[in-house]
């Protein structure tokens, strides 16, 4: 039994073991999947809108990705890291002006209507481009979607758009919703936003606010023999400690998205019948970042920013704040990204003496009280780890004579203070890397973004060379050339430090050993779970 529970020490033992386990999927030790059963799992929030075509966020995907499917899903083995879903193939034209999707045959919506290219065209033009939080950026140049037949959709772009970007955007941004449901009335007010209708392996059953969501098996699903489960129940557990207790009491069988706090994992990994899994989130990497307000004259000085980078002991942060469930960061692209990451960037080793020397050089001598200057430090409250890192950073800065005063806000107040009011000097943020730097990463350092846009450069940083590089990459069609430009981007960001990347982390799942086919793709928690099963 205990042979399958992964202890923290084993995880820390190195990436070799992780790679080995990636090559041998966890399903390797199980027999043929069993049919039937009800999977009960923990949910910590209740999204107001369950339509993933409008709100592309993990909170929404967690539930709705089982109901509404995308054109393609992320995959460990597939070409370009993708596996087909509603689309069987995708091909970009050399001029970057069109992408052709061939769609799956014989797919039906949950209400029995056939799925066709008209649904894809409608979703792309009427929802992704004008309404979706991420699609508004990625699909901004989408001009038309041609549907030569019911199983072909050709995306036409007004300006050349890199096929690599569209490909990387497919898993998160391409949820297809039924045209015949959404063409009536205002899309934002459609009742299907709260009771989604899709093509997925599960149908929306019912929602009891504050209690649970119930999804039921779609008997007409296109996947052969799939899905295996009869029902999925998301039990709403708002308290951070309840998920662990509920797992132990066998009231739930799965807690994803680190619903069990890191501090409890060591204990829970020893509970017989439970397994701790850190795989299955590679496509949802969060980055621990120090956001910098360059309007402060001290912080506008590169030497001061370098000093701060040298003052942070990244290994200590990974070990103490993340208890080992994270990796140190070198730049704005996470190490686990297979396409763009480069380690060849300026590094800032932990060196307090050097940091002090840099600050002296910059002309900020220590005063008689040992302080050089005072800063406001705003840690984002969304994760325990961002708050804890705020406490650490305060101490790390004290060691180099910078007096950081912590300002703790709740989520709404933090968003307002940092991204609208710019009332910060340093902030701790957790931006998400979404498989392509153009989706939500370059925006963190690019200039010219109006104030009020969350998770963007609101620190007043402006670097014409970097802006030019970002602009060039956004119109470079050749994948290899585009990848090289983003490698150069990482170098320049690490050199000029518009922000400081400290660590990269993802989530942990805890499940009963009876739950099979867990974590078999890089976005598992937000994928369709057609092949997930229960042994008993």
């Amino acid at each position, binding site marked *: 039994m205990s042979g399958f529970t992964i202890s923290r020490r084993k995880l820390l033992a190195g990436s070799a073991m992780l790679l080995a386990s990636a090559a041998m999927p966890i399903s390797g030790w199980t027999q043929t999947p069993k049919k039937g059963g009800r999977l009960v799992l923990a949910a910590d929030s209740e999204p*107001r809108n369950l339509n993933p075509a409008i709100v592309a966020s993990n909170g929404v995907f967690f539930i709705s990705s089982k109901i509404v499917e995308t054109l393609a899903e992320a995959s460990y083995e597939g070409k370009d890291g993708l596996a087909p879903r509603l689309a069987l193939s995708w091909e970009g034209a050399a001029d970057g002006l069109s992408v052709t999707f061939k769609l799956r045959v014989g797919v039906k919506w949950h209400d029995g209507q056939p799925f066709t290219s008209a649904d894809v065209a409608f979703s792309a033009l009427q929802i992704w481009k004008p309404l979706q939080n991420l699609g508004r950026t990625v699909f901004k140049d989408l001009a038309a979607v041609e549907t030569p037949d019911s199983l072909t959709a050709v995306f036409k772009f007004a300006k050349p758009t890199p096929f690599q970007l569209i490909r990387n955007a497919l898993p998160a941004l391409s949820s297809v919703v039924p045209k015949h449901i959404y063409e009536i009335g205002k899309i934002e007010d459609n009742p299907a936003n709260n009771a989604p209708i899709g093509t997925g392996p599960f149908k929306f059953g019912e929602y009891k*606010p504050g*209690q649970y969501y119930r999804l039921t098996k779609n008997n007409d699903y296109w996947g052969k023999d799939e899905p295996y489960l009869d029902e999925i*129940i998301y*039990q709403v*557990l708002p308290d951070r400690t309840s998920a662990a*207790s509920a797992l132990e009491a066998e*009231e739930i069988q799965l807690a994803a998205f680190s619903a069990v706090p890191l501090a409890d994992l060591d204990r829970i990994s020893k509970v017989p019948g439970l397994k701790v899994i850190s795989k299955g989130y590679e496509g949802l990497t969060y980055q621990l970042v120090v956001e910098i307000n360059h309007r402060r004259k001290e912080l506008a000085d590169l030497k001061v920013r370098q000093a701060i980078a040298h003052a942070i002991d990244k290994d200590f942060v990974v070990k103490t704040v993340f208890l080992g469930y994270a990796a140190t960061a070198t730049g704005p692209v996470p190490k686990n990204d297979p396409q763009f990451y480069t380690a060849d960037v300026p590094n800032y080793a932990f060196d307090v003496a050097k940091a002090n020397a840099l600050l002296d050089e910059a002309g900020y001598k220590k005063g008689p009280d040992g302080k050089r200057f005072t800063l406001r430090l705003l840690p984002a409250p969304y994760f325990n780890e961002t708050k804890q890192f705020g406490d650490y950073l305060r101490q790390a800065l004290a060691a180099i004579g910078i007096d950081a005063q912590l300002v703790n806000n709740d989520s709404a107040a933090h968003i307002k203070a940092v991204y609208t009011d710019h009332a910060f000097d340093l902030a701790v943020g957790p931006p998400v890397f979404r498989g392509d730097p153009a989706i939500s990463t370059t925006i963190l350092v690019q200039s010219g973004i109006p104030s009020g846009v*969350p998770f963007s450069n609101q620190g007043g940083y402006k670097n014409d060379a970097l802006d030019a590089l970002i602009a060039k990459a956004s119109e470079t069609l050749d994948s290899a050339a585009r990848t090289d430009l983003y490698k150069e981007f990482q170098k320049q960001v690490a050199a000029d430090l518009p922000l400081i990347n400290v660590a990269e982390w993802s989530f942990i799942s805890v499940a009963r050993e009876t739950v099979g086919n867990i974590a078999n793709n890089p976005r598992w928690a937000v994928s369709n779970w057609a092949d997930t099963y229960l042994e008993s």
Partner: protein
Amino acid sequence: MSRALILLRRRVVGSIFVLMIVIIGTFLLLEAAPGDAVDAYVVATGGDAGMIELLRHRWGLDQSELTRLATYLWALLHLDLGQSVTFSRPIRDVIVERLPNTLLLMGSATALSFGLGSLLGIYAGARPGSARDRLLSIGSLALYAVPGFWFGLLLIVVFAVNLRWLPIGGIETLASDKTGLDRAADIATHLVLPVSALGFIYLALYLRMMRAGMAEAWRQDFVLATLARGLSRPRIVLAHVARNALLPLVTMLGLQSAQMLGGSVVVESVFSVPGLGRLAQEAVAARDTPLLLGIILVSAVLVIVINLLVDIAYALLDPRVGANEAGA
């Protein structure tokens, strides 16, 4: 009966002013909190400037505070609580869905703390200063000093995780399709732990109050008289000493109802009970002003009604109360 009616009339008139102050005060407080509903919403989604502007417009947040307050009050005059921004549903429905759970939780917890508290208080107060009195007093104070969430977690670990006698949380078994008596029994089972967590903490208050009242009563002349008349000890304790000490407890009951609402925020979160307390917490985090106003309004009405009932009960129990008004 006329005394009760006079009280009722005075209370209703006074309550309307109280409610107005509560509404405007809450509105201003929430406006003063940094960030609005859109800021809270984009935490999970992100979004560009155009999308954010669109959301502010759709949710009416681009209007001035005064306009929004006026719109809200105008709708309230028509008994319309408005639309929740976070749930995209009418607030009346959201509250009606949760109110019974909170009432059930609060009602049971109050009954537990009042009933058991006063009983134990009588037991302790029957012989003030005795060993059992000391033991009960210390025990109840220790319970009172325990933070509610911690006591709740403790109960979960012992009775739900280790012994598995009771469910860990929720108001009923998920998607069980139970009806009638089965469902009632199911809900009762789910309520045992949260009611204990909430009730045992407030039990100390009633116990201490009862005991103190009785200790005082023992020293009164009329008790000496009952002793002199040779009444049996149980009769003296119950019919004379305890009865006289009971009145302040009834007052306390009214005051406690407001406290219980506050305490239910924590207990509802720990035990995942879908009630008003948890809803209020979510409304604050989401900056859902109309929803929070609705919850506070309902809670305020609840507290006012309970206190009114307490006052009426008091007037009926004690002939001295309200005698002046009745005469005037």
